């Protein structure tokens, strides 16, 4: 089955700086995928390459089995809402719907008009006078009404208030239930993504830290707490994600497919937000050239 996004060794370089490097992903179709990471992690770069707005420096990317942005056929299969939902301030809402109708092959005018009505937005209103939440909804309506197979949303609600955010997600989920389209949405808010996604990609410091089905991720990550121990002594099957120590106690987050039977550990689950934070912390540590306990040792010696 074709993947929604298939990336292999994908990278993008600006001058000396790699905005995205070594990205290999196979994102399945038919589900809602969250792309999470701090600002500047490379989320927008990745999504821009998925829509064909940017050409990669290295590696390759395929979207729904085709080259991104390559011609009207590919373009009509993908709906896109860019960061902060840009719209034409000088055109009216009705003009935007006409835009959609004229520039798309499959345009569901009834759906678009219905949504706008449901949102209580007047068609004659100039798009520049809409509130932030309404603009995001308009942009989403345009993307959905072109009846794509895949929706790509780049932090569309980052600057909205909680109510507007909730309303946007409600509309998004309703559409997904109705049409079964695939969705990829990026955000730096894990809570929003946890509600709506089944699959998560964590992007930190221009690299994919972890990607997978959310239930599997939560099941395969365990929080071990017990007597102080060097993480390097743990078996190979347990990949250490993060570790913190006091003089007596260690708390270590590991990724492990098998159950953990060591009686010395008290094993607990971790919630998604903490899991993402742990990966963000790990990325930062390895970027600084320190690694987990070794880094802690160096700091201690300096003291």
């Amino acid at each position, binding site marked *: 089955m074709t993947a929604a996004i298939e990336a292999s060794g994908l990278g993008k370089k600006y001058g000396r700086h790699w905005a995205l490097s070594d990205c290999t992903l196979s994102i399945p179709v038919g*589900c*809602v995928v969250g792309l999470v990471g701090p600002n500047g992690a490379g989320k927008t770069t990745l999504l821009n390459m998925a829509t064909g707005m940017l050409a990669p420096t290295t590696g390759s990317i395929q979207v729904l089995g085709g080259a991104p942005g390559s011609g009207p056929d590919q373009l009509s299969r993908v709906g896109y809402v860019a960061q902060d939902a840009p719209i034409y301030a000088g055109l009216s809402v009705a003009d935007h719907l006409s835009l959609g109708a004229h520039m798309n092959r499959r345009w569901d005018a009834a759906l678009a008009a219905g949504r706008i009505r449901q949102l209580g937005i007047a068609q004659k209103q100039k798009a520049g006078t809409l509130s932030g939440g309404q603009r995001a909804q308009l942009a989403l309506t345009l993307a959905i009404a072109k009846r794509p197979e895949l929706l790509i949303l780049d932090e569309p609600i980052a600057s909205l208030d909680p109510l507007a955010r*909730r309303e946007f*997600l*409600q*509309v*998004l*989920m*309703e559409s*997904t*239930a*109705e049409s079964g389209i695939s969705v990829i949405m990026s955000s730096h808010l894990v*809570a929003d993504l*946890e*509600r*709506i*996604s*089944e699959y998560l990609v964590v992007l930190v410091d221009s690299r994919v830290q972890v990607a997978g089905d959310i239930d599997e991720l939560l099941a395969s990550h365990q929080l071990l707490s017990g007597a102080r121990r060097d993480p390097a002594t743990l078996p190979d099957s347990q990949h250490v994600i993060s570790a913190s120590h006091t003089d007596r106690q260690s708390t270590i987050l590991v990724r492990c497919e098998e159950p953990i039977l060591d009686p010395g550990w008290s094993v607990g689950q971790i*919630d998604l937000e903490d899991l993402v934070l742990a990966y963000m912390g790990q990325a930062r540590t390895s970027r600084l050239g320190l690694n987990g306990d070794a880094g802690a040792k160096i700091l201690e010696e300096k003291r």
Partner: protein
Amino acid sequence: MIEFHLDTRSGVAPYLQLIQQVRQALRLGLLREGDQLPTVKDVSGSLAINPNTVLKAYRELEYEGLASARPGVGTFVTATLSSDSIASYIELSRDLEGWISKARTAGLDDESIGAIFQRSIRTAVQEEVR
């Protein structure tokens, strides 16, 4: 028709919460045999959660024999829990009161009693559905 709500801080998975709420509604007689459960579209649209979460819950209810999906129409309640449980309610309430006085005698305060209770419930629910 019932309305669902979600408690994101409870530590209980959303689909389990939906199942619990259906069971609760059945117990209290808010849902009767033949009633239609809200559509997947409506639930995911009002709670802003993934439609597959709702589907998972409804499939689980089907597996337990509490509901059945009619393609193109919706998901309908096929059994009730009310009649069975009223008698057991009374018996279980008495058992629980006994346990609580035991716990108090052992020196536990209300908070500790509450904590033990919450944890046992959580574990039990997860075991049950697995």
